C-alpha cells in the first residue's frame, strides 16, 4: 500500500511545484493524507524496533493488525465520507452486530442460502442508514444525536429479536465451503475481509477523488447552503451516504460471522471509537469539507498497529490507550496546520 495515488491526485499537472524541485513535495504536504502517512510510518518504525525480537514483523504479527484493520476500515471510510460531508454516524456499533445476527439467524437458524443471509444483512444496514439520513435531513437535530438514538434503538432491537427468534443472544453459523472461502477464508493468514477492504478502498477512492460526484461530498461539508444553490441534491446525497455507511457496517458484520463462525447481539461500542479515531487520525477535518480516502486508510492501519500489535512488542500492553490518546491529540493539532498549509499554498507565485 503506497501513497502514490493520493499524491498524483493533488499534484498540479501543468507546472511543477517551484522551490521544492523534482517530485512534488508541496503537493504531498498539501494532501491531508500526508500527516496520516507520516504518523503511520513513525508508529510502524517504533513498533518494529521494539517488536523485532517479539515477532512483530512475522506473518502472524502482521496479519493480526491487518485483519483487524480491514473490518474497521470497511466501516471507517464511509464514516469518513460522512464526516467530510459534515455529519457523524455512531450507529455503526449497533449495525455491525445487527448485520452479523441477521446472517446467523437467516442462514444459520433458518438454514436459508448464505447469500440470502448476506442480502438480508445489507438490507438491515440500508434501512437503518435510510432512517438516519431521513431524520437528519428532515429535522434540525444534529446527526450525532440522531445516530446515538438509532445506536441504542438498533442495539435493543437486535437483542430483543435474537431472543424472539432463536432464544439466544449468541449464535453459531458455519457457512458452506465456497462462501467460507469467499467471505471468511484465509490467504497466508490474511482474512478475506482484507481483500474485500482493498477492493472497497479502490471503489471509495474512485468515488471520492475521481468521479464528478465526489466533489459534492466535500461541498456538503464546505457550505451546505451554497451546495443546495448550486443544484446539488443535498438531501438525497446525504441519505445515500448514511445508507452507504450502515450498509458497510452490516457487511462487516456479515464478514465477521462467516470468518469466526459465531455472532453476538451485543453492541460493539469500541467500534464507534475506533472508526472515529481512524478517520480523525487519517486527516479528515471534524468540521467537514476536507479529507482523503488514503488518509483514512493510514489512520485505520495506525490504530490497528497500536491496539492489536502491541502484544508483539516489548511495549507494555496497557500503554496502547495512552498512545492512541496522544496520537489523536497530535493528529487534531496537525490537521489544523496542514489545512493552513493547504489554503496558503500556491503552485505559482502569489504576488
Amino acid at each position, binding site marked *: 500500500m503506497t501513497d502514490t495515488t493520493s499524491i498524483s491526485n493533488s499534484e498540479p499537472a501543468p507546472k511543477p511545484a517551484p522551490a521544492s524541485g523534482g517530485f512534488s513535495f508541496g503537493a504531498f504536504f498539501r494532501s491531508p493524507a500526508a500527516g496520516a502517512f507520516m504518523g503511520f510510518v513513525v508508529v510502524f518504525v517504533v513498533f518494529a524496533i521494539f517488536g523485532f525480537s517479539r515477532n512483530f514483523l512475522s506473518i502472524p504479527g502482521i496479519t493480526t493488525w491487518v485483519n483487524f484493520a480491514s473490518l474497521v476500515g470497511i466501516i471507517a471510510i464511509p464514516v469518513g465520507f460522512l464526516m467530510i460531508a459534515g455529519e457523524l454516524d455512531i450507529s455503526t456499533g449497533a449495525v455491525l452486530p445487527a448485520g452479523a445476527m441477521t446472517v446467523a439467524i437467516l442462514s444459520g437458524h433458518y438454514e436459508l442460502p448464505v447469500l440470502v443471509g448476506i442480502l438480508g444483512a445489507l438490507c438491515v444496514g440500508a434501512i437503518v442508514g435510510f432512517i438516519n439520513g431521513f431524520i437528519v435531513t428532515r429535522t434540525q437535530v444534529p446527526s450525532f444525536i440522531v445516530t446515538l438514538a438509532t445506536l441504542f434503538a438498533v442495539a435493543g432491537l437486535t437483542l430483543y429479536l435474537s431472543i424472539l427468534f432463536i432464544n439466544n443472544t449468541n449464535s453459531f453459523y458455519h457457512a458452506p465451503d465456497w462462501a467460507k472461502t469467499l467471505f471468511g477464508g484465509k490467504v497466508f493468514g490474511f482474512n478475506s475481509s482484507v481483500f474485500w477492504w482493498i477492493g472497497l478502498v479502490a471503489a471509495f477512492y*474512485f468515488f471520492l477523488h*475521481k468521479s464528478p460526484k465526489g466533489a459534492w461530498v466535500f461541498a456538503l461539508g464546505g457550505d451546505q447552503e451554497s451546495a443546495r444553490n448550486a443544484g446539488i441534491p443535498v438531501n438525497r446525497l446525504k441519505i445515500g451516504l448514511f445508507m452507504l455507511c450502515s450498509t458497510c457496517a452490516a457487511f462487516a458484520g456479515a464478514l465477521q460471522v462467516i470468518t469466526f463462525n459465531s455472532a453476538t447481539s451485543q453492541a460493539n461500542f469500541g467500534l464507534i471509537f475506533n472508526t472515529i479515531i481512524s478517520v480523525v487520525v487519517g486527516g479528515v477535518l471534524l468540521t467537514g469539507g*476536507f479529507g482523503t480516502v488514503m488518509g483514512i486508510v493510514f489512520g485505520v492501519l495506525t490504530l490497528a498497529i497500536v491496539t492489536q500489535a502491541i502484544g508483539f512488542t516489548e511495549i507494555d500492553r496497557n500503554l496502547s490507550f495512552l498512545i492512541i490518546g496522544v496520537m489523536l491529540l497530535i493528529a487534531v493539532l496537525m490537521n489544523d496546520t496542514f489545512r493552513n498549509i493547504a489554503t496558503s499554498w500556491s503552485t505559482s507565485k502569489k504576488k
Partner: protein
Amino acid sequence: MSDKQPVLELRNVDKSFGPIDVLHEISLKVGEGEVLCLLGDNGAGKSTLIKTLAGVHQPTNGEIFMDGELTTFSSPREAQERGIATVHQFGGTYPLMSVGHNFFMGMEPTKGFWPFKVYDREKANRIAVEEVQKMGITRITDGDRLVGGLSGGERQSLAIARAVYFGARVLILDEPTAALGVKQAAHVLRIVNEAKKRGLAVIFITHQVMHAMAVGDHFAVLIRGAIAADFRKGDKTREEIADLMAGGESMADLEANIEGYMETHEGHVPPPAH
C-alpha cells in the same frame, strides 16, 4: 427606462409571512446591460425581495415577468434554469476546495465513459482560470489553488465569473461588498461593470450608497418593505439617497467627505497611501 423589453420585471408584488407583511406593492424592472441598485437599511426587506426573485419564496400577490412573460418560480433550481443567478455575501464558495472545483460545482466536466466517468480536472482548472482572468482577476493563475487562500473580493469575482460562464441573464448580488475592504470592494465593482458590459441584467443589493453610485444605472430605495424612491442615475445626489435610506441628515454629513473621491475618480477608490 429603455424601450427594450425588461429581462425581469416585478409588478405589485406583496409578500407576507402569516400576519406579517414584509413586502408591499413592489414594482421593479431591469433590462439587459443595466444595473439596478436596491438600497435599503437592515430590515428593509432586501433579503426577502432577493429570495422572492431567486425562487426561494413565492409572492403572496403580484406578478413576476421574465422577458415579458408571466412566470412563477417554484424553486431556486427553476429560477436558476431560467438564468437567474444569485451570488451571496460570502460568494457561495467552498474554502477547502480548489478554484476549479468551486467554479464547476454541480456541473463538473467529465471524461471517460460510464461507469468510469472521471472529473476532468485539467479542463475544469483551465476554463476556471481563463474565465476568472477574463473578468480581470489576473492573480488567479492556478486552478488547483484552494479558494480559502483567496481574498474575499476574489471569491466574489469567482462566483460572478461562474454565473456569467453558465449563462446567467440576471445576476443578483446580495451585499457583495459588505464584508470587504475598500480595495477589495473596488475590485468587485469592476467585475459588476464587466458583467454589465456583457449584457447581463444586474440587481445589486447594498446599503453602501457609495458603491451603488459607482455602478448603478437605476436605483430603488426600499424602506419597510415598500419602494420609497425609484429614480435613474443622476436624478438624485448621494446625500439625498442617504437621507432617503436613513431618514436623517447626519448620515449624509458623515459620508459627504468620502464621496468626493468617487465623483472625481470615476467611481474608483483612492490608491493606498505609501
